[in-house]
């Protein structure tokens, strides 16, 4: 019952947000600032994650194909799994953990300090003022981060394949190139854009309806990251089925 009520409130929240953003002018400047903030703040951590996702995919593909004598196919496995699945979902999970929790806690703090009520009193729509720039910012920046993550991941995968596993680097690259199409990058970016929307809306929702006090803020931040990660994973399957199935 509570879950259903939360879902209903979430739907109402999204509708209010959508109508508020459409009724007001686009906050171009604020959105660019948010995009810069989210992109640059999350960049170092994303690069670290991408490097190790690449290395692990290589080890995993090697372990799976070696018993069949197909270890030279690792390049294909890494390219398919990395470009289509791992890069979008890992980037989104990290952005949910970093930028998403930040959004949730910032907005929750504004709520409990009654700054959101103050905005309303000044007749500024808080949905438009607080959420629209964050939404546009993350929506612009997440697909770009995904492409960056794909390249980082492939470089680290190639390094592990040649230096640790002793595979042929040229063959690795040739197979990787043969299995991925430029369209796959586009699909990865579409996925990332969908995840961006989910992360932003879920995190802002939990922040917006935070309960009072420090534990309220903690709880809002906590729910934001768990719910957005799980919804991204579920949505990922549906998107894979539609895009590649």
């Amino acid at each position, binding site marked *: 019952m509570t879950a259903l009520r939360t879902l209903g409130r979430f739907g109402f929240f999204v509708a209010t947000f959508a109508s508020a953003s459409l009724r007001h002018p686009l906050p171009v400047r604020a959105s660019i600032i948010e995009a810069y903030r989210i992109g640059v703040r999350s960049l170092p951590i994303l690069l670290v*994650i991408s490097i*190790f996702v690449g290395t692990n995919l290589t080890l995993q593909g090697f372990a799976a194909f070696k018993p069949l004598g197909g270890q030279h196919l690792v390049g294909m496995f890494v390219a398919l799994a990395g470009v289509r699945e791992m890069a979008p979902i890992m980037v989104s999970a990290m952005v949910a953990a970093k930028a998403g929790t930040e959004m949730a806690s910032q907005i929750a703090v504004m709520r*409990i300090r009654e700054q959101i009520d103050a905005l309303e009193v000044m007749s500024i729509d808080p949905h438009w003022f607080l959420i629209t720039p964050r939404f546009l910012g993350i929506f612009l920046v997440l697909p770009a981060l995904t492409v960056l993550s794909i390249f980082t991941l492939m470089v680290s995968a190639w390094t592990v394949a040649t230096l640790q596993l002793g595979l042929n680097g040229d063959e690795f690259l040739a197979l990787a190139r043969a299995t991925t199409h430029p369209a796959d990058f586009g699909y990865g970016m579409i996925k990332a854009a969908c995840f961006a929307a989910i992360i932003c809306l879920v995190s802002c929702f939990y922040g917006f309806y935070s309960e009072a006090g420090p534990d309220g803020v903690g709880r809002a931040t906590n729910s934001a990251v768990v719910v957005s990660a799980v919804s991204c994973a579920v949505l990922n399957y549906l998107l894979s089925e539609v895009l590649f199935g």
Partner: protein
Amino acid sequence: MGYVASMTSLAGLGRFGLFSASVLWRVLTPPWEVHETARHTLNVAVRCFLPVMAIVFPLGMVMALQGLAIFDTFGAQRMLSSLVSVAVFRELSPVLASTLVAAQGGSSFAAELGAMRIREELDATEVMGLDPLRVHVVPRVLACVVATPMLNIAGSLSGIAGGMFTAVVLKGEPAGIYWANVWALTQPADLLGGVLKTLIFGAVIGVVASYHGYNASGGAAGVGQAVNDTVVIAATSFIVANYFLTTALFGVMG
């Protein structure tokens, strides 16, 4: 700026090391808060169970979907469940289950301890002559260490089930072949390797979460910041540690 930043982060690392050492000392020496530990373990296990299942299941489904695309080209669909089980037992389930425990359990521990710090409850504990690390921190760290491997096993099973759901129910592969090949490339040792990984990841979650909560400052915003740092730092350290653990435990070398 670079120099100052690197010195502050070095000092932070040192403080973290000291904190971990003092927690480890209290884990090893009595008295232990057995009741509190059991309560927190049960709490983490129950609260993380659904999220862990809900994240590993769809990823098992995706593995099967993409695996079928690869194996179809070779006519080797029967190997699908082997690919899924290697990936799920060794990599996906340990990393994802731990990430979710960090996001759900670890961050709520950070929030609880942070709120106690802000409300000066930790100081009150100390004034009453109790050791706040022993009473509040050690049970939470132990709870993470115990609960994460259990959740990993549940996650592994749900990943295999997710793969089966896609392959058998949605794509019409024969169920018997799927089940027969689950253990073709994996041994129970792989499941054990995952448990070993998650024991380490669980300890990381517990210590990172308690450190950030215990040292929270600056009101409600500080608590939010502590929760944020816990999730990011814990998840990054698993993914980095995972590479070395996979190489060491499963001996993947050329």
